[in-house]
């Protein structure tokens, strides 16, 4: 199929580009990336870091952290069901993730249950369903890989999925930049200007779901939430301009992914966890040292 060949060529090109950069590094740093699986892991991590960083701005500004958590957990039964039916896992993951977020919206809107309870209730239920199905059909290694990621074992098909998700997310954010910005900043105003806020709302949720599904194999569904919150929160401390925030957030996402991946190999520890720890470290560093909203400056200002 020519489409697949194109995708493979694109991935090969991107990896070649990355390796050209990696080879500029000292040998000790570049050494692990001689292996093909490490190259794939590097590209996947960078893509995931970038997409999550981008979406993270909306998650942080719209106070959607818990929603991100909910969708990521709700993806689990979809993976399990897809495995049962022999579908590609991302189809199932996307379906249950999207269905759960719709269910949360419906409960919020039509009952007296508040949104945090609606989210907690729906995602734990979905997650439990996933655990039960998986306990019947697969080994616990599979479950661990889904929960915590397995970036070193990323296959070409998963890398392709991440790449496609990244392109879709980038296009959506670019084409709908102003509606999304206005919706995040002031949804009432968006409504008054005749924007279809319902479509923007669910579009953003679907984008979030797509991002989570694409990150599944890298950091896993438990830790993807960190990548959807930490880069945006870090960037929010550093700037008062939205486009700058997005640039910083993507940078934080990519840097944590790359540094985390390298450290995890060097120290022989879990990659997903290391990536998230690097991001968290960057956040605390920023929290202390940020030029305007940092703790040090705040203390100094009080003196």
């Amino acid at each position: 199929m020519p489409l697949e060949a194109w995708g493979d060529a694109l991935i090969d090109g991107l990896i070649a580009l990355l390796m050209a950069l990696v080879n500029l590094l000292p040998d000790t740093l570049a050494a692990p990336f001689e292996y093909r699986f490490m190259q794939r892991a590097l590209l996947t991590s960078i893509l995931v870091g970038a997409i999550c960083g981008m979406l993270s701005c909306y998650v942080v500004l719209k106070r959607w952290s818990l929603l991100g958590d909910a969708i990521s957990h709700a993806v689990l039964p979809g993976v399990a069901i897809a495995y049962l039916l022999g579908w590609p896992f991302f189809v199932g993951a996307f379906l249950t993730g999207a269905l759960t977020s719709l269910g949360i919206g419906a409960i919020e809107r039509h009952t007296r249950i508040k949104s945090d309870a609606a989210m907690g209730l729906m995602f734990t239920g979905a997650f439990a369903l996933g655990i039960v199905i998986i306990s019947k059909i697969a080994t616990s290694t599979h479950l661990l890989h889904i929960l915590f990621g397995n970036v070193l074992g990323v296959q070409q098909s998963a890398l392709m999925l991440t790449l496609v998700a990244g392109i879709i997310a980038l296009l959506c954010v670019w084409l709908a930049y102003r509606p999304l910005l206005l919706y995040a900043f002031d949804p009432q105003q968006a409504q008054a200007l005749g924007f279809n806020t319902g479509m923007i709302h669910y579009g953003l949720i679907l984008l979030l779901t797509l991002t989570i599904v694409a990150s599944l194999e890298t950091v896993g569904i438990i830790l993807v939430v960190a990548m959807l919150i930490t880069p945006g929160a870090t960037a929010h401390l550093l700037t008062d301009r939205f486009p700058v925030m997005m640039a910083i957030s993507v940078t934080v996402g990519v840097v944590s992914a790359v540094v985390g991946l390298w450290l995890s190999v060097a120290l022989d520890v879990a990659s997903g966890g290391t990536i998230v720890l690097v991001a968290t470290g960057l956040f605390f560093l920023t929290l202390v040292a940020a030029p305007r909203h940092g703790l040090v400056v705040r203390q100094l200002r009080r003196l």
Partner: protein
Amino acid sequence: MSAVYNSRCPAIEARGLYAAYQDQPVLSDVSLSLPQGKWTAIIGPNGAGKSTLFNLLIGNLAPLRGELRVFNESAAIHRRAGHIAYMAQRENMEWDFPISVRETVMTGRYGLMRNDPLWRRLLPQRWSNPAHAEAVAAALEAVDMTSYARRPIGALSGGQKKRVLLARALAQQANILLLDEPLAGVDSPSEALILDVLDRERKSGRTIVMVTHDLPSTRRYADQVLLINRVVVGAGSPAAMLSDAMLARLASGQTPLPDTEGIHYAA
């Protein structure tokens, strides 16, 4: 102004409007007609449904029954055409948002940007249609906030924030300005400035609809006053509507609620 309408047709017209929030009736059988190019003040106690009327106009809420027309057409058409500018009453807005004063005012132009060619819409702000930047600059100048244009929105005082929100509504250059308590929580220099700006807008032919609790400024500026307390208590000149008798009637809600049998107040 982006369109010319038959001056006979009212800017906003409602017939038999009913609205509710979560099963709680807020507006009952509201009929009104707000003329073009006039300043209408809407006055009523808290919870009387004043903001609800605006929410219906900006499409945040659908009426249960009745009709709401803008320039004799559906309000949605004129929202999309950018003919309705809305300044909300904001205590709970996200002021931490990373956005500058200028870009906040620019968001008032986002609806109009739909008419720009696609290539302009896909490029960053500096390559967008210069008309947008000009309108934003003029609006900032009108509310005397030009020197604050690059500040983050969260760094402003309460009165300055109100002026920026007014500038955003002005930048839209809409036929109708809907203002929800633009004078609430504003110091007196800002208040004088806001009233002065609105007076100029009215004189240039715009329709101003303003929810307010401030009676002195209403007496001085408004062409028409609408008294609302879930129902329309009265509509007429400021002198007639702001009489002690009318205000007492408004506060006591003496007008009986009309028969609501057969109306389903479902959310």
